[in-house]
């Protein structure tokens, strides 16, 4: 039985009858499929149905949150009682509460996020698509002898939110993805890389052949990777890795990091925190974007915002609670997950494209690093210290020369953002966090002894 807005309203009504002053309900119901093939055979098929209901109740300034995946009446009744009991014994928090009704979304745009067509695609057809993608990689080069497989997946999510401030809304969203991870071997060295396509609609996925070919190309170019000497050089981030940098910036701009004074961007509103090449938008209204949504986790409307304009910090990323702590209104970035109170999340968080092609950016580097993969957790949001394991291609005299690995790149995000010398024109609007190629004028590459 699917959960309905009426059921949600009933639970909230009962909660009020039990003394709750306010409350909200967030329900996620989902279905997903994933099929993996490896070396031309099916390896794994997974089918899933999952759901969760998260109930948050306020008794004045006290509140508690509970969740369950058991939607039987008995279980929901027990959950309601539990939530009331927990809320009453929780300490008071003067800032806790729902947003005002007047700031909530008045209408809910559709944005056409649901993919009904994928239901008409049989498991066999989907598996065939993954096989074709893997085959395209396997046949691209004789050095590709092994594979972590090709994978196809899609998911539908039905999101329902209702609160006692009068807001209620519901939408369905889908996503599909196709990926391949080939393994190449040469002279005893084994290298793996991957490529993928991820879109709202199955029919919009990049072709199996192109995903496989790109995965093969990315893997083959890693063969023969070596260390380089420790040195300070310009570093060019490919679009995928540049997006990971932008994600670090997003974390540091989260209201929760800011009010806890746990961000290197504390007290920077209105200041120049990045080079003039950097303009970043958070746009939940973008057509077909993977971060597009009709309302945020607290029912606030979706609004396109410029977060950084030519390097000047225009806006933090806030929900109602973190906004109140900073004495600012919510920016509509409340994000919800099963069992937890709202947090801050980005929608489509995009570093807007510049003028230079990636080739021109690489050509501008005499000696430096083109980064294609980063590993580790060496990012400190409090201080901005940044030190990550890196894989990439060494740039010599403006051209990609040879693959490198077992090195780190390090700097401090404050300086790295100001040192963004150029931003490419190679931009994909469909990814949730997206960036073109980015060049940082100088970072420390650590490898073998300095020369």
């Amino acid at each position: 039985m699917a959960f309905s807005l009426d059921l949600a309203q009933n639970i909230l009504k009962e909660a009020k009858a039990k003394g709750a002053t306010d409350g909200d309900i967030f329900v996620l119901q989902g279905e997903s499929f994933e099929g993996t093939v490896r070396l031309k055979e099916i390896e794994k098929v997974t089918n899933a149905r999952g759901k969760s209901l998260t109930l948050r109740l306020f008794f004045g300034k006290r509140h508690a949150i509970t969740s369950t995946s058991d939607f039987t009446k008995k279980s929901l009744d027990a959950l309601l009682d539990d939530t009331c009991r927990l809320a009453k014994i929780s300490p008071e928090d003067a800032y806790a509460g729902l947003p005002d009704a007047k700031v909530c979304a008045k209408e809910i745009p559709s944005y056409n996020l649901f993919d009904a067509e994928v239901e008409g695609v049989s498991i066999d057809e989907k598996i065939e698509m993954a096989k074709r993608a893997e085959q395209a990689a396997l046949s691209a080069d004789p050095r590709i002898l092994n594979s972590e497989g090709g994978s196809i997946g899609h998911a539908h999510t039905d999101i329902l939110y209702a609160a006692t401030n009068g807001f209620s809304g519901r939408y369905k969203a889908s996503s599909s993805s196709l990926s391949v991870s080939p393994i190449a071997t040469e002279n005893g060295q084994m290298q793996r890389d991957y490529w993928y396509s991820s879109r709202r609609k199955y029919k919009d996925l990049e072709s199996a052949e192109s995903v496989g070919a790109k995965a093969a190309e990315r893997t083959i170019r890693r063969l023969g990777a070596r260390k380089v000497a420790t040195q300070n050089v310009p570093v060019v981030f490919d679009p995928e890795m540049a997006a990971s940098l932008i994600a670090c910036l997003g974390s540091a701009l989260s209201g929760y990091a800011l009010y806890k004074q746990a961000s290197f961007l504390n007290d920077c509103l209105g200041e120049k925190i990045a080079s003039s090449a950097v303009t970043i938008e958070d746009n939940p209204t973008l057509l077909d974007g993977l971060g597009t949504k009709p309302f945020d986790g607290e029912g606030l409307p979706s609004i396109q915002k410029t977060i950084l304009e030519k390097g000047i910090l225009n806006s933090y990323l806030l929900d109602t609670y973190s906004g109140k702590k900073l004495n600012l209104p919510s920016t509509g970035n409340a994000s919800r997950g099963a069992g937890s109170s709202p947090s801050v999340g980005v929608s489509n968080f995009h570093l807007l494209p510049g003028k230079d092609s990636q080739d021109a950016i690489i050509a501008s580097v005499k000696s430096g690093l083109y980064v294609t993969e980063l590993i580790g957790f060496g990012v400190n949001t409090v201080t901005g210290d940044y030190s990550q394991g890196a894989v990439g291609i060494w740039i010599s005299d403006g051209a990609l020369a040879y693959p490198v690995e077992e090195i780190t790149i390090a700097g401090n995000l404050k300086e790295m953002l100001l040192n963004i010398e150029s931003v490419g024109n190679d931009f994909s609007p469909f990814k949730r966090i997206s960036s073109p190629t980015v060049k940082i004028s100088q970072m420390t590459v650590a490898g073998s002894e300095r020369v």
Partner: protein
Amino acid sequence: MPTFEPESFFLKKYDLSSSSLESVMGRVLDKKINYADLYLEYTTSETMGLEEGVVKKVSKNISQGAGVRAVAEEKTGYAYSDDITLENLMVSAKTARYIAHAGETQNVPIVKYRSSPHDLYPVETAPIDIAVEEKIRLLEKMDCIARACDPRIKKVMASYASEVKRVFIVNSKGEMSHDTLPLMRLNVTCIAEDGGRREVGSFGGGGRHAFSFFSEVLSDHSGSRFEYYAKEAARQAIVNLSAIDSPAGPMEVVLGPGWPGILLHEAIGHGLEADFNRKGTSAFSGRLGTRVASDLCTIIDDGTIPGRRGSLNCDDEGVPTSRTVLIEKGILKGYLFDRQNAALMKMPLTGNGRRESYAHSPMPRMTNTFMLAGDSCPQDIIRSVKRGLYAVSFGGGQVDITSGKFVFSANEAYLIENGKITSPVRGATLIGNGPDILTKVTMVGNDLALDAGVGTCGKEGQSVPVGVGLPTIKISEITVGGTA
């Protein structure tokens, strides 16, 4: 905890019977399926967080569901649902066997109750059943203790989480097993500020214990465990206020005891999980019986240590956990197996088939991974270094299984100059090559310690609790990724 009766708990709760489970197994099986299992889970969990002196986020969660799996040679079919009804289990069973051609449905008699030889977490009252007020008070006390350490401690964030997971597994061999797993964790993060500079320190611990574990008085520290956690987080934040930029480039590195064992987990452990080795995608593939470490190194994965975060009575396929020697005096001795890979590689089970929840199918995973102690005195190890790095605490780590390259990031480290520990350094990430890093271990201390109980390992999107351990060790060369 009161004895967990799977019959009454799962079967009554979801209106199932052993004959209905037999028919679910029967639906999955046909002549082309080698193995099938049904995994029922009911987990209750709670979390709460303190910031600015106030406990703010009290939450309680219930998660239940059932996963049905069919295995045919290298192929796996998996379906799960969180509505546990016979009808849904039958649908899942049918989906799971998509990977093989349909055959005749047959019933599988459940004959054998398989109990584990272990009772590793005999907790009288699960932490989740202790009054919430006690946990709130504990967090408030930690806040006071951390702030009292130094006036430069400006922000304290503390969190508490606990869960009880009940699992019930039935398989196509007619075996039935179950377990009840308590788990809890306490974390503190402090932000210290001095002259406009801000630095962070964190510490925490836990395991499969009773709630009273946190207030036990430690023999080697003045005070209880929770006090120690709070003081450690504060101390680390204050130390980092005077940290200088980390050096960059290759150097001698000494790792302190305990949590730095994350080195073994990343550099060695993942590469020895059987799935990667069966597929030939690990940098360790085909190296059984060869030298992969110096003869000072013996490395163990042991899921049977009482109360540890990574310990299990039986794994998530109902196989009792064990102690597995991965590397003995430098020679690669063994891999970590789940049922599917053990069968395909014709090797014995090790009890390492784990899954995050009913929403995931099992795969080979580590439990508690550590290096046995050596002979050296830790002070002698430090004294032997002319110029190097001494790293005592780490954030996370990651490995590329195929190339063998791994990283882990220090959040407390010092320079060693002329045999003495000198300035703290900040932002040091270490990067190395898994298959040869342990060949560079030149000294092993006599001070093996296990971590305090906060480790979580991620693999293919599944998180499971793990433990690590290490004595003080010296590595002759590893690349340090700093800026100086």
